Structures are given as structure tokens and as C-alpha cells.
């Protein structure tokens, strides 16, 4: 039997004005388990807390009920008080007789009656309370960042600077991601390489950062603070630690006809290659799909010319296993395929390109050496049409495209238009738009400059059809404000393709038990208040894998994710919320219902041997809750048909005791 103390607060006149606190204290004195019941002006004051402290000590109380304001206000206060008096803090229950009683009722008699009932319910509950101790788990003080674009690099740098080791896993031979492919960046127009490559080098040289390039995450086990991850290091047939990156092999390789993915296949590279001059790590990689040596066993030119003897045709994929305390997803985005939008003739003409391809055409390190030349004939285009929102903002019922706004297209299109007019003032530039969306610091000013200073023709309307005729692209479009249909003879058409999450995100989310939305963007723990955390504890989100983002936004989110990771890794042990679910394995059927509703992947199953009531032994599959991962929502408790699953602090018996007390 519990020994319960009841403390009724006047809260000045806030409670005492409509509730007869003395009558409440008196009425509750005779409830089961109550040994002392008293009232005081301000329970939350030091004097009030001292009073509770004393009462616990003097009466050897095992539980207390405070009839006062909302538990959202002072539950933590009274729990501390209890703890200071040697009582388990979870032996405290609050009856909310202010917000939910005295403040909403006017009649003293009614208010008093209700306060007594609320007090009874709290007493009924506390009678069934058990001391709870938050579980503690150790934290592996190392982070894993999946994806080596600007988001991943920035997150890794920030974590590493705080003194924690970080691994970056990047599936490509180099880090850098999409930003490495860009020419200039809006709204400042500084060159992407100039601001990105120093960060890439910094990451490579940082004592706390290890870059696992040309590698993929294969399996993730564990939970917050204690993840075990399998990483596959793909064979690059070049010894990474020996290769000096001199590039001789990439010049001598006889296989010259390999589409160069870094330049979006607008030119070719060799079968052994370094993606671009500032690649990190700057080591060569052999493409096994094209290498003659690997395919036929005849060639070996690269091995012959390599003075460092770094070529190793016998290399195999390697699997490594590492432990991490936190994981950051930074898997980024890709432009969608333009195949379903062939009214724009992307597959019919080389001179219809995507914006990312345009970046490469403008880039000094690109296939044209930075000269804006048409892919078809290498001539200067004189009329360029930009089409915005290709595949963005489509209805869910339309047969193609994405429902969301891709967010970055308005700004990069303005940038492209402006740069074109800046370099080639004799070019006519049209931008077809539905809306120009420029919320961001100095963004609208930037767009206005494109219009006002650079004379870009912004046309409100959409292109309906692009027809390649001769060496021209006939663009048929609407000009809604002029109420006209335009027919423009263009030399180049640039499509602002919608962006979508990288294909690797979905399988990664499955491994992480992190949730995703219907578009395969990672879901955040809370859309406003916890935007860089996944609902799965210990998993954080950085960059466009959470939603379309530009570079400034990506970098700030990357920093925020890093701060959250640092906050986690700084702890030696993780203290959980003790109000977590627990399964009674004697009653558990192992049916997986609870596992299916758990938003956190906190439930796993083990097969154990049990001695059955009929004295046989049997192997049974039973649920186990990982208390470090469980957040205590209770969804599993209702999904469980046998009642094996219960929630500490909000046990079925406790809630039913409250129901009984209220309905008495």
C-alpha cells in the first residue's frame, strides 16, 4: 500500500477564488492510501516546496499528489522537490485544478466538487505508480555522414571542428556533389568551385574526418548512440594510398569513348579517370564497364605508365564495419528525367538541355571550356529560351511530374539569364515563368537586376511545344499578359527540370527506419520545431534529401544538423524518457502488430525458449522494446491484442483507475 501525501495549492486566489481548497484537502484525506492532506498558498514557492519536502520525510511518503496548476507548468518542479526528499520523481502526479477547473468554472460549489474528483483520479493513479528510472546507454562518439555534397561536407566539418571523428561516405569517386558541377552561385555570383573546393580540401585534411569515397552504406543496425554500419568500399582498381593523382594514366588510357557523367555526358572521358581537377580524394578510378584490361585481360597501359605502381587490377570490393553514435543523411537530389516531357523535344534535339547541363556549358572546366556553344554544332546561340517549372507543381492526377515546387529553379534561371546577357550581350534571352518565386535574402533584387539591368525578357506563360526545324528550335508559347501566342525561333532551349531526392534515399530510409514522404524526401521529426532531425532518434537530416533547398539554406541546415549531432555526441550516456513501452514476454504473441505501428523502429523480436504451463518447453518469438529509441507514444499498446505491451507511467491499469475515479 502506498503512503500518499496530497498538497492542495491556493495559487493565491487563482484556485482558491473558485475552489474551496480546504474542503478539497479535507475530502481527499480519506481516499485510499492518503496519509496526509494539506493546503498552502503557493505550493511552487520555496516555502511550499519545503513543506512538501518535510512532509515526505516525516511521513515516509511513497507518493505525492499536487493539486495545482497544469503539469505542463510545474510537474518538473515538483518532481525535483520529490527527488530532493529521496522520493522517485515519477511518484508524483499533478491534479490540474487551475487551468482545467478554477479558471473555467465560476461556481464555487461546482469547482470544488470537480477539484475533488480530479484529486481522486490523481490519487487513484499514484496508487498504481511505480518508481521509474530513465535508462542509460553509452554513446559511441563518432558520426557518420552519408553523402559528400556541400551538405555532407559542411555537416562533417562542423562536427569535426567540435572534436568528434566523422566519416563521410560518398558513392562517387570524389566528394563535392552537385555544387562541384555548378558554375556560379546566386545571388552573389561567386564561382562555385572557388568556395567549395577549399572546403573539400579542408575536409580531406581535417584530422577528425575520414572520407570514404566510392563507397556505399550496405546495412545499418542499432539505435541512437550505438549504430553499427556496414560500408562497402567499391574496388577502384587503384591503390588509393599510393596514387599521387598525377593524371598520366588518364591521358594515356586508349579507351577514349566513355561518356563523362561529370559533364552530364556532353563529352567523353577515359576508362581510367579523375572526375575533375580538384577532386577529393584526387586519385584515379578505373571504370570496370569500359576498361579493356578488366573486360578482356588485354591492355594494361595505365599500369605501365604509372610510376607510383598504384594500379591493381585484382582489387575487390571490401566490406568494413564501423560503429557510430549518430548518422546524418545528406543524400541530395537529382534533376528528374525529361523523357516524359518530350513536347520540349529534349530527346529530339541536342540543343534542348537541362539547367544543370547549362551550368556545365557555362563552366570554364566544362566541355566547351566555358564558352556558351550549342551542343549540336558548336555555334553561339543568339536566342535562348528558358522554360521554368518543367515537371514541378504538377497535379497528383497528371500523368507526369512532381507536385511540389522545386524551389531553386527561379533563382538559377535568373542567374543563367543574367550571366548569358553579361557574357554575350547580343543574345536574346526569354524566360517563361508561371510565378517568379524569390523569397530569400537579396533574391528578389537579383531577379529584378536580371530584368532591369540585363534586359532579360520575362514572359508570364508556358511553352507548349518546341519543334526542331533545320538548325532552329521553333518555340510555341503563350504570353498571358499580352494574350498572345508567341512563336520564337530559338537556338537553345534550357529546361528548368524539377529536382527529386537521390535514388539511394529510399533504401537508406528503410535501413535507418527513418520515415519518408510520398516524394521520397526524408520526413523531419517536427516540421517547424525539429527540422533537422528524423523522427528516428540519432538520425539527422542535412540538405536536399529533406526537401528542395538552395546552397545557403543547405549550409545553414547542415550546420544545424551538426549542432544536433554534437549535442548528442557530447553526452557520455544517453538518459531516456522512462515513460516507455515494455512488453511482458509471457503474454507476447510475437505477432508484429506493435512493430508495424511503431514510428521509431523501437521494437525488435527475439526467439526465446520458454517453459510452458504444461511443463513443455517451447521456442517463442517475443517483442523487445529498445528503451533508448522508444519515445512513449503508446501506439503499440493498443495494437497489441493480448495486452502484453504496456506503457510505463501511463499503464492501462493507471488510466482505467483514473476513469473509475472520475466516473464514481
Amino acid at each position: 500500500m502506498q503512503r500518499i501525501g496530497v498538497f492542495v495549492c491556493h495559487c493565491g486566489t487563482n484556485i482558491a477564488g473558485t475552489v474551496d481548497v480546504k474542503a478539497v484537502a479535507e475530502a481527499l484525506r480519506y481516499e485510499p492510501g492518503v496519509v496526509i492532506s494539506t493546503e498552502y498558498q503557493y505550493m511552487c514557492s520555496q516555502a511550499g516546496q519545503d513543506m512538501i519536502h518535510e512532509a515526505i520525510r516525516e511521513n515516509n511518503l511513497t507518493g505525492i499528489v499536487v493539486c495545482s496548476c497544469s503539469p505542463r507548468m510545474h510537474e518538473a518542479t515538483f518532481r525535483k522537490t520529490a527527488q530532493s526528499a529521496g522520493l522517485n520523481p515519477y511518484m508524483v502526479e499533478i491534479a490540474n485544478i487551475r487551468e482545467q477547473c478554477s479558471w473555467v468554472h465560476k461556481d464555487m460549489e461546482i469547482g470544488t466538487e470537480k477539484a475533488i474528483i480530479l484529486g481522486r483520479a490523481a490519487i487513484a493513479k499514484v496508487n498504481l505508480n511505480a518508481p521509474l528510472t530513465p535508462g542509460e546507454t553509452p554513446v559511441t562518439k563518432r558520426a557518420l555522414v552519408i553523402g559528400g555534397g556541400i551538405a555532407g561536407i559542411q555537416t562533417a566539418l562542423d562536427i569535426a571542428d567540435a572534436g568528434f571523428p566523422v566519416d563521410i561516405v560518398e558513392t562517387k569517386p570524389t566528394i563535392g556533389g552537385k555544387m562541384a558541377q555548378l558554375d556560379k552561385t546566386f545571388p552573389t555570383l561567386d564561382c562555385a568551385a572557388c568556395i567549395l573546393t577549399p572546403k573539400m580540401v579542408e575536409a580531406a585534411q581535417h584530422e577528425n574526418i575520414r572520407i570514404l569515397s566510392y563507397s556505399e552504406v550496405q546495412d545499418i543496425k542499432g539505435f541512437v548512440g550505438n549504430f553499427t554500419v556496414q560500408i562497402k568500399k567499391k574496388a577502384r582498381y587503384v591503390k588509393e594510398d599510393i596514387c599521387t593523382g598525377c593524371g598520366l594514366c588518364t591521358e594515356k588510357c586508349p579507351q577514349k569513348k566513355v561518356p563523362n557523367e561529370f559533364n552530364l555526358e556532353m563529352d567523353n572521358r577515359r576508362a581510367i579517370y579523375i572526375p575533375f581537377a580538384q577532386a577529393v580524394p584526387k586519385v584515379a578510378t578505373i571504370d570496370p564497364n569500359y576498361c579493356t584490361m578488366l573486360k578482356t585481360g588485354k591492355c594494361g597501359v595505365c599500369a605501365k605508365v604509372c610510376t607510383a605502381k598504384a594500379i591493381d587490377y585484382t582489387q575487390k570490393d571490401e566490406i568494413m564495419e564501423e560503429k557510430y553514435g549518430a548518422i546524418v543523411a545528406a543524400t541530395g537530389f537529382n534533376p528528374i528525367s525529361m523523357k516524359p516531357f518530350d513536347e520540349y523535344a529534349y530527346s529530339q534535339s541536342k540543343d534542348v538541355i537541362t539547367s544543370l547541363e547549362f551550368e556545365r556549358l557555362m563552366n570554364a572546366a566544362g566541355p566547351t571550356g566555358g564558352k556558351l556553344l550549342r551542343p549540336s554544332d558548336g555555334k553561339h546561340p543568339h536566342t535562348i529560351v528558358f522554360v521554368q517549372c518543367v515537371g514541378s507543381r504538377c497535379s497528383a492526377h497528371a500523368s507526369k511530374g512532381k507536385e511540389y515546387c522545386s524551389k531553386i529553379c527561379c533563382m538559377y534561371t535568373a542567374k543563367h539569364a543574367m550571366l548569358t546577357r553579361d557574357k554575350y550581350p547580343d543574345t536574346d534571352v526569354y524566360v517563361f515563368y508561371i510565378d517568379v518565386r524569390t523569397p530569400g535574402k537579396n533574391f528578389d533584387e537579383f531577379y529584378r537586376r536580371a530584368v532591369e539591368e540585363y534586359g532579360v525578357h520575362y514572359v508570364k506563360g508556358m511553352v507548349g511545344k518546341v519543334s526542331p526545324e533545320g538548325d532552329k528550335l521553333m518555340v510555341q508559347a503563350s504570353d498571358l499578359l499580352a494574350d498572345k501566342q508567341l512563336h520564337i525561333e530559338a537556338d537553345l532551349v534550357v529546361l528548368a527540370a524539377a529536382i527529386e531526392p537521390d535514388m539511394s534515399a529510399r533504401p537508406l530510409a528503410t535501413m535507418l527506419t527513418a520515415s519518408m514522404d510520398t516524394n521520397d524526401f526524408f520526413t523531419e521529426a517536427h516540421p517547424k520545431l525539429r527540422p533537422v532531425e528524423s523522427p528516428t532518434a540519432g538520425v539527422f537530416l542535412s540538405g536536399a534529401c529533406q526537401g528542395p533547398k538552395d546552397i545557403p539554406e543547405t549550409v545553414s541546415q547542415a550546420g544545424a544538423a551538426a549542432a544536433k549531432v554534437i549535442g548528442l555526441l557530447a553526452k557520455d550516456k544517453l538518459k531516456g524518457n522512462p515513460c516507455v513501452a515494455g512488453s511482458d514476454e509471457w503474454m507476447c504473441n510475437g505477432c508484429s502488430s506493435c512493430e508495424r505501428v511503431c514510428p521509431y523502429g523501437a521494437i525488435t523480436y527475439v526467439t526465446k525458449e520458454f517453459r510452458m504451463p504444461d511443463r513443455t518447453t517451447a521456442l517463442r518469438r517475443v517483442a523487445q522494446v529498445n528503451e533508448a529509441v522508444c519515445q512513449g507514444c503508446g501506439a503499440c499498446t493498443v495494437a497489441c491484442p493480448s495486452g502484453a505491451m504496456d506503457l510505463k507511467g501511463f499503464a492501462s491499469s493507471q488510466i482505467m483507475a483514473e476513469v473509475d475515479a472520475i466516473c464514481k
Partner: protein
Amino acid sequence: MQMTEFKPKIVAFCCNWCSYAGADLAGNNRLNYPAEVKIIRVPCSCRVNPMFILRAFQRGADGVILCGCHPGDCHYTSGNYYTRRRMALLFSMLNFLGIEKERTRVEWVSAAEGAKFAATMNDFVAQITALGENKRLEDLRCKK
């Protein structure tokens, strides 16, 4: 045949993050609603087991209302989606057994909707008062 005015017993389950906070806000703004409503705090609406609801009726409740975060806003991301399915099916079943459908309700109340909380409770109490005492799901042993 009631001698005194009928005062219904109403049990309101409120999730800790949205609706309980919404009820607190109603209090902060001194928005009145009937004292017949007694709130039980649960971490999430998905913690509410149909057994709790039947238990309340058994013990003499005349109406049970369940409040949670708006769909899409659940603190635990998906809890209220499960609540929605469970209660849709449970309420339909209770009504299939002839229990008045007005006796049970689910309402989404956010932490900012103090006014909605008070209005909902006023409305629900009025509805139950008009409906009268719960006779179809009571347990006579539990009645005085």
C-alpha cells in the same frame, strides 16, 4: 423519471502535446465550459484503448470524447492516424450495436485552439445532456 436535473458524466482523453495544452489555453483565457467534463492526460491519442472507452461507459460515463493533435501534426508523427482508424471502426461498431452515435466523439484540437476546446466541450455536453443518461452500456453494479 429523474428527480434532479440530469448532469452527465463526460470523460475527455487529451493528448499531452496538443489537446491537453489546448485545454490549458482555454483555462488561461478563462473560456468557460461545463464542469461535467473531466480530462485524462495521455501521451498521445493513440494511447487510448477502446477498453478505456468501454470502461468509462461501464462505470457510468454518459459520453466519451477523445482529443488529439490534428492529423499530420502528431508529436509522434503518426499516432493520431492510427487513432483515427481505430475510433472510426469502434464508433461504427458501437452504433451497430445500437449505442447512440452521439455518445462518442473524436476532435482534433491543437495547442493553439483553446477556444475550439471550450466550444467543443460546450457542444458535446449539450449534446449528451439532450441525449440523456447512458442506459445501453451501463453496468448496474457500478451505479449507485
